[in-house]
Structures are given as structure tokens and as C-alpha cells.
């Protein structure tokens, strides 16, 4: 049992924090400028992420990556949370990269991973649909085999993160079974410029970008079918679990900033001739925020320890718990940060609202708190029942 970072991990933490604080000297202003660029982020900046090796973290060394794990990914996540960085790390490395790591064949990985690592290939995982809500197996988009050994895709994908800028889409579609069947889901690599792909990009509430994507008779070549075209659910689940662990770390970073900012505000903002932090009611709210943050930090560590677990049931169980705690802590810290700032917290000019919005979006993504609590309860929770006395 050792929850301390290794020296290498400390170096990574310092370097990723260094990069992002340098790139985002003023979170609100820098983001506003970058959001105007095509795709909603600065493409030159993304190259810097690649140069620092961040895009290589989770990929096997054999595939051209660094062969690191969820702890290193979490360090990036936390730095993103602290700076609200806009670069498509979640879409490309966590989600797209996850799908490739867990579903693609060795040949396909050899073809795709170097592009991700170099920063040239950006990805979007086009999985979510209008009706699917939080059920990863709910896929209505269809993939019908064609004569060439490839497939033809038909369907609609909603709120695809960075779907309007990715150089490749990874689309989930059903090759067999009913809409909610667990078998029969495949993953397909699609060129966004291919005939029949229509993309409507838009800004999201947290200042990032997403797209609705419609697929009409979109042809996919045989080589672009990622792994087994009927067995992708396990890969999607594993990718979602890794995303939850990653987002937990990101949320911790965002909560840290909100807590620091609120604490500083309480110590400097004067009303009735004194700092509002001299009032016990304010102090206790900040202690509650601190407690929620520390509990979130603890569960995020648990998440990064369990994200690499091969036993899918135990991994899932853990991620349910992670997402519940993160959701609850995030809501408390976010709402209290705005409340304790008062009017200034409501403005778009001040940073608190931006962090609060990001935390809110994290809560809504990859299963909200209620969803994961329900699923955890259904699985029987974390602790086994005791046995009756003999």
C-alpha cells in the first residue's frame, strides 16, 4: 500500500502543470481567445502537449506509447481541471485512444497510435445517441456488411465531444441484435469528410465544443472496422471507466481552484467593516467545501487505482462509487463557491462560474450521480453482507 507519487510521476505532475499554467495565464481570457479558433482550441498548443509526451501516456510501448497508466492520466486530468484547458485530451487520448487500445487489432494500433502520439491525429468517440442516456449498450445506429467486407453505417450521434474538429471519428454501430442488446455493437473508424457524414458543431455549456453527427449510407472499409464488429461493448465500458477515473481527477483540480478562490475571497472581501471570513457561518461552509474536496481527492485516487483493474465487475463497482462521490462533492463545492462569492460569482468575467460549469458538465457525463448510485446498489454495493451468527 503506497499512495505517494513516484519521482517520475512527480516530474510529470510538475511538467504538465507547468505547461498548462503557462498556456493559460488567465483562465477566463485565454479560454475566450482560444474558443474563437477553429475547433475551439489552439492547434499549435496541442502540438506542445504531444511534444511533452502527454498524448503518449496510456499507449503500450509496443504501439509507440509510454506504457503508463491511470495515475499518470489522472495527473494530466488534475492539471486540466485546474486550468480548464480546452485541448482535446479527453476526446482524443482518453476516449478515442481508449477505444483503440481496447478494441483495435495490433495492426490497427500500429497504424493509429503514432498519429495520436505525434498530435497529428485527433479523435472523437461518436457513441452517444439521443435515446441512449447513460446506457452504453443502447445503440440504434446500424452497420450493415457490404460486399467488400466493409460496412455501411446509418444513424444519428449526439453531443460527440470535439466531433466538429477531430480528424477521425470512432463510431459505434450495431451489426446485430436489438437496440438495447449487449452483443452486436462494433466500432468503426470514419473519416469526417466521407460521403454521407454530416456534422453540426456547437459550443457546450462549459466552453468546449461538441457535435451532432448524422451518418447516411457511410461506407467503412474492412481495415477500419476496429476489432470484432460485434463485441465492442467491453471496450466501450472499459473506456468509459477510464474516462470516469480521468474526470474524477479533473474534477478534483477544478474543486481545488474553487476552494482556493473562495477562501481567498472570504479573507479579503469586506462587509460591515470586516472580512466576511470572520463570520463563523462562512468559515464552516468553507470547511464543508474542504471536506468535500478531500473526500473527492480520496475517491479519485481510488479511481485511478481501480481504473486499470482487469476484472470488469470490480472495476465497474469502483467507478460507480467514484462517480457518485465526485458528483456530490462537485455539486457542493461548485454551488457553495458561487454562493460565498455572491454577485461576483454570477458573472462570466470571473473564473468561479467557469469552474462551476465544468464541474456541472462532468456530473452529467458518463452517468450522473443518481445513475451510478442506482447501479452500485444493484450490484450489491462495495461491502459484502456479514454472515449470520452460527
Amino acid at each position, binding site marked *: *500500500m503506497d499512495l*505517494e507519487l513516484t519521482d517520475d510521476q512527480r516530474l510529470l505532475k510538475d511538467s504538465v502543470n507547468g505547461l498548462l499554467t503557462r498556456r493559460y495565464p488567465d483562465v477566463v481570457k485565454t479560454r475566450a481567445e482560444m474558443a474563437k479558433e477553429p475547433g475551439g482550441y489552439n492547434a499549435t498548443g496541442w502540438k506542445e502537449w504531444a511534444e511533452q509526451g502527454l498524448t503518449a501516456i496510456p499507449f503500450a510501448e509496443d504501439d509507440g506509447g509510454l506504457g503508463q497508466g491511470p495515475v499518470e492520466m489522472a495527473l494530466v486530468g488534475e492539471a486540466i481541471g485546474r486550468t480548464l484547458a480546452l485541448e482535446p485530451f479527453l476526446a482524443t487520448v482518453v476516449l478515442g485512444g481508449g477505444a483503440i487500445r481496447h478494441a483495435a487489432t495490433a495492426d490497427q494500433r500500429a497504424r493509429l497510435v503514432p498519429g495520436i502520439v505525434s498530435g497529428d491525429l485527433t479523435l472523437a468517440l461518436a457513441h452517444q445517441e439521443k435515446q441512449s442516456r447513460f446506457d452504453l449498450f443502447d445503440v440504434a445506429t446500424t452497420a450493415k456488411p457490404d460486399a467488400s467486407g466493409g460496412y455501411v453505417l446509418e444513424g444519428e450521434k449526439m453531443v460527440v465531444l470535439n466531433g466538429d474538429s477531430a480528424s477521425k471519428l470512432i463510431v459505434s454501430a450495431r451489426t446485430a441484435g436489438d437496440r438495447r442488446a449487449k452483443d452486436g455493437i462494433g466500432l468503426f473508424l470514419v473519416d469526417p469528410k466521407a460521403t454521407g457524414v454530416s456534422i453540426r458543431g456547437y459550443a457546450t455549456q462549459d466552453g468546449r465544443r461538441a457535435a451532432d453527427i448524422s451518418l447516411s449510407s457511410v461506407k467503412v472499409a474492412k481495415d477500419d472496422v476496429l476489432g470484432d464488429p460485434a463485441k465492442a461493448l467491453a471496450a466501450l465500458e472499459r473506456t468509459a471507466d477510464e474516462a470516469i477515473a480521468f474526470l474524477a481527477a479533473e474534477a478534483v483540480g477544478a474543486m481545488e481552484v474553487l476552494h482556493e478562490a473562495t477562501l481567498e475571497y472570504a479573507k479579503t472581501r469586506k462587509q460591515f467593516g470586516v472580512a466576511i471570513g470572520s463570520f463563523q457561518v462562512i*468559515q464552516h461552509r468553507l470547511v464543508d467545501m474542504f471536506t468535500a474536496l*478531500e473526500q473527492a481527492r480520496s475517491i479519485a485516487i481510488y479511481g485511478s487505482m481501480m481504473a486499470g483493474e482487469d476484472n470488469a465487475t470490480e472495476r465497474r463497482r469502483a467507478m460507480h*462509487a467514484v462517480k457518485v462521490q465526485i458528483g456530490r462533492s462537485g455539486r457542493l463545492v461548485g454551488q457553495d463557491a458561487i454562493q460565498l462569492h455572491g454577485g461576483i460569482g454570477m458573472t462570466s468575467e470571473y473564473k468561479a462560474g467557469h469552474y462551476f460549469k465544468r464541474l456541472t458538465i462532468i456530473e452529467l457525463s458518463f452517468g450522473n450521480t443518481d445513475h451510478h448510485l442506482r447501479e452500485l*446498489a444493484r450490484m450489491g454495493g*462495495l*461491502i459484502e453482507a*456479514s454472515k449470520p451468527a452460527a
Partner: protein
Amino acid sequence: MDLRFSPEEVAFREEVRTFFQTQVPLSIRRKVIEGRELTKDDIVTSHKTLHKRGWATPGWAKEWGGTGWSPIEFYIFGEEMQMNGVPSPVGFNVTMHGPVLIQFGTEKQKKHHLPRIAACDDFWCQGFSEPGSGSDLASLKTTAVKQGDHYIVNGQKIWTTLAQYADWIFCLVRTDPGAAKKQLGISYLMIDMKTPGITTRPIITMDGGREVNEVFFDNVKVPVENLVGEEGRGWDCAKYLLGNERTGIARVGTSKMRVARIKELARIVPSGNGSLMDDPQFAEKVAMVEVELKALEMTQLRIISEDRKSGRRGKPNPASSILKIKGSELQQATTELLMEIAGPLALPYVNQDPDDIGHNEGPVGVDWALPTAPAYFNNRKVSIYGGTNEIQHNIIAKAVLGF
């Protein structure tokens, strides 16, 4: 970073667990698991069983019987103890008075008292709180006036846990009412409970339990050799004592044990066409507690991991300050859920006072359900004692947030 325990740690856990399960009587452990009150004999038997194995005073300096365990071994030991329903060694002896004596006592005091404290040959209780001094402990009024080679103690202590079992009491008393600061006039005295002038009166708590007492001192003669540390510096002892307990205070193992019990019982209680555990609303309430508990367990492990690295000499991790608040909330949440499982079966009141046979009607109700309401009522105390959770908020605000 690695959550797994080393083979040595796994073996240690196995050793500890086997000892608890085979050496501490099942009848005592069942009482803890089922939330029933322990007798003095239960507590002392369990303590002495651990003492024989050298495990009653693990945190003490080695020369006085400590084990020299690593933080992680302490953690494993505590968790197994709690999960297996083993009563903790008497805390007044082991985590409160013993360490104070080791730190501040004279050689003579140590030689005489420490072996008896360790073996629980003497049962100690704590005389800190007074009717007017709860959270504001330093305002205490019990006086000790030196007359020759004795102090004459007058005053009253309250909420004195298990004073009815105690052979000795360690007390904070005011030796200098004129001191510049109220903390400065306080001294730490050891008082034999058999000394003339001491009266103990039980306070029956709302659960019907007889756990706490009032202790009155009427011209009680205490030899000056029973002063611990310097006269007027008792506050140092008190601060040392209160700061001693770090990770154990969260009682994660106890809450884990109760969650396991909740699931065991909720499966035998019918609800609708299935069991209560099949009721999604109930199951989600349990799951919510488990999530918070997992986070708290990880908080505790973070602190231990850091302690190990810094050799326990580092600055305390700020996260340690949340253990009391979250730990007490979860202890209360688990006892609340246990009572909810019992539902109407929790209603029958069984008088637990052995002296009050007149009201004992004999077996009533469903056995497992009977202790659930008293345990719920009783556990409201955990957010009050050891510094209320509101005081804990003040402490964090000051020590961690810098207000």
C-alpha cells in the same frame, strides 16, 4: 502508487484476524456486532486477552510495552479489531492516560502505574468535562488547593464515561485561579476513586444506557505525588492527550462492520414481494453510505501512506482533520439504517440496567431488532464527544484554512 498490501502485511492481517476470531470470546464479539451493551467483565476480559498477546498498548514506547508497528500495521490491527467486533482496549488507559504518563510522568509514576494501566489491573476514567465546561474545556472550575503534601480537591465532573467501573480517574483541576490565562492555572491529577469524598452518580442516557456519570469531589485528599507534569501545566497534558488520536478516530472498520450487518439483516426483513435489500430506495441509501465510507477509508490510507514516508514526523496532513467529522457522520448513518431495518420491531424497550430488575419483563420482541433503536439513540453522542463536530469545524477553519 499501489493499493495492494505487501505479503508481510497480508500475513500480519491474517495473524491478527485469526487471533481475534479464536482468542476473543465470540459471546463478547457478538455483543459488539449486534450493538449490545458490554459489561465491565466483557471489556476487561477482551483487554486482558489482547494484553497477554502484547497487543493492548501497541502505540506505547517499546520500553513500556509498545509493539513498534508501522502506521500500516496499526491501521490493519484497528480495522480487523473493529470489523471482528473486538472491544478496543480501554481507551482511557491505553490511548489517553498511558501516553500522557509516558510523556509527562516521573519515573516512579511510570513504574508504578504503567504496568497496571497496560494490563487493565486498574480501570481508568477521564475527569475533564464539567457542567459549565463542555466545548470550552479551559473554563473548568474544579479546584485543587495544596495543603502540605496533599491537594484538596473540590468540584464536579460530568459525562465521566464508565466511572462506575473505574479504579482511578485522571482529572484536570484548577490549581491557580489567579493565573494570567485560564489555561495556565490548570493541573493534571491522578485520583484514586476509593478516596473518601468522591461520589459517583449515574446519568441514564436516552437509550436507557448507564455509560456516563457525574463525579463529585468533596474535600478529596490527593497526595502531591499524584500530580502529573508541572503544577499549572496540565493543559499541555490535555492537549497532548487530545491530539494523540489521529486515524483511529474515524472508526472506518466499525462502520464497515455495520454495513455488512445492515446487508445481512436487510436480506431477512421482508419488504413488498422481496426483502428490504431489494427495495431500490433502501439499497441506494446503503450504497451512499458505502461510497462515503470508501472515500473516508482512502483519506485514512492517504494519511497513513504519508505518515510512513515522513516517519510520522512530518506536518500532519490537513486531511486528517476531516476524519472525526466524516467518521462520526458515518457511524451515525449506519446505526440509523440498522434501526430503519428493524422498523416497528425496534419499538420494544428492554431495560438494560441490571440493578433495575423490577422493570425487566423478560424476553420480548425480536432479538436482533431490540438493540437497534438504543444504538441509534446512543450514537448521537459521537458527533458530540471528543470536541463536537461544530468545534471540529472551528479547528479546521483555524488550523487548515487559516482563519
